[in-house]
């Protein structure tokens, strides 16, 4: 398998985050892996966590809700709406981490046919402020959430 690099673009003046990645599969298959819950749970979500999908209606106007579990413990919960599901071309959805319920990211995934059975996915997220965008980039749900809980534990013990 060839190595496809993941590119991250962080605009200094806009609260956006862009992730670009090529895949060795045609758009219909990549799109399916992005929208079929049985496939999504196999790759989305941080490393070594289990993604428990509670709701998934992958149609325009539909929505989703899932939780991330590790070692029998729920780490985080997420939900959002499918604003537009345009097969094999474009996926627009909202994304909220329940730990910051007022925050919402608008995510647009564009599936570009590169020919040759390959697909480029450009994912653009728009959040409320540059500050929040920087926090998303710097924390990474994976580590940040756990460390946050550990700190809370310590605080509660000390109190």
């Amino acid at each position, binding site marked *: *398998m060839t190595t*496809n*690099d*993941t*590119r*991250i673009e*962080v605009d*200094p*003046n806009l609260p956006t985050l862009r*992730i670009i*990645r090529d*895949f*060795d*599969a045609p758009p219909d*298959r*990549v799109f*399916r*892996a992005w929208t079929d819950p049985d*496939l999504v749970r*196999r*790759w*989305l*979500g*941080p*490393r070594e966590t289990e993604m428990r999908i509670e709701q998934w209606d992958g149609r325009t106007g539909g929505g989703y809700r899932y939780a991330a579990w590790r070692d029998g413990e729920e780490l985080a919960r997420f939900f959002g709406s499918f604003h537009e599901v345009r097969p094999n071309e474009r996926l627009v959805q909202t994304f909220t981490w329940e730990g910051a319920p007022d925050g919402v990211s608008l995510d647009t995934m564009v599936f570009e046919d590169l020919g040759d059975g390959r697909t480029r996915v450009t994912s653009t997220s728009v959040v409320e*402020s*540059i*500050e929040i965008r*920087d*926090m*998303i*980039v*710097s924390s*990474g749900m*994976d580590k940040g959430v756990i460390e946050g809980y550990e700190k809370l534990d310590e605080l509660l013990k000390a109190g």
Partner: protein
Amino acid sequence: MGEDRLSRVFAALADPTRRDIVARLAAGDKSVGDLAAPYDVSLQAVSKHIRVLEDAGLVTRGRDAQRRPCHLEAEVFDLMTGWIERYRRQAEERFRRLDAVLAELDAETDEDDNRGAA
């Protein structure tokens, strides 16, 4: 870097004028007067922005009593580059798993093709 410091860095960089000041300091040290020149605001307002950047540890002031040139603390930006790289690696891990899922789909679809369902 402690969490308080991190919040101060984020707050400092949330302002477009301060981001612009930081970008210009990346090219070299400058006095407050130099920094204020292109903006349509008072020297005082620019000084205030610089104080916020100083409090966040992004900028230090030289000892020269007259000019006290502003200096960008470059290691802070190495840190930000590091964050982006870590985020990129997390995305890359996720996409490697997706690569594996797609490779399996390939095999399944070949079976579908044999049934004439493609």
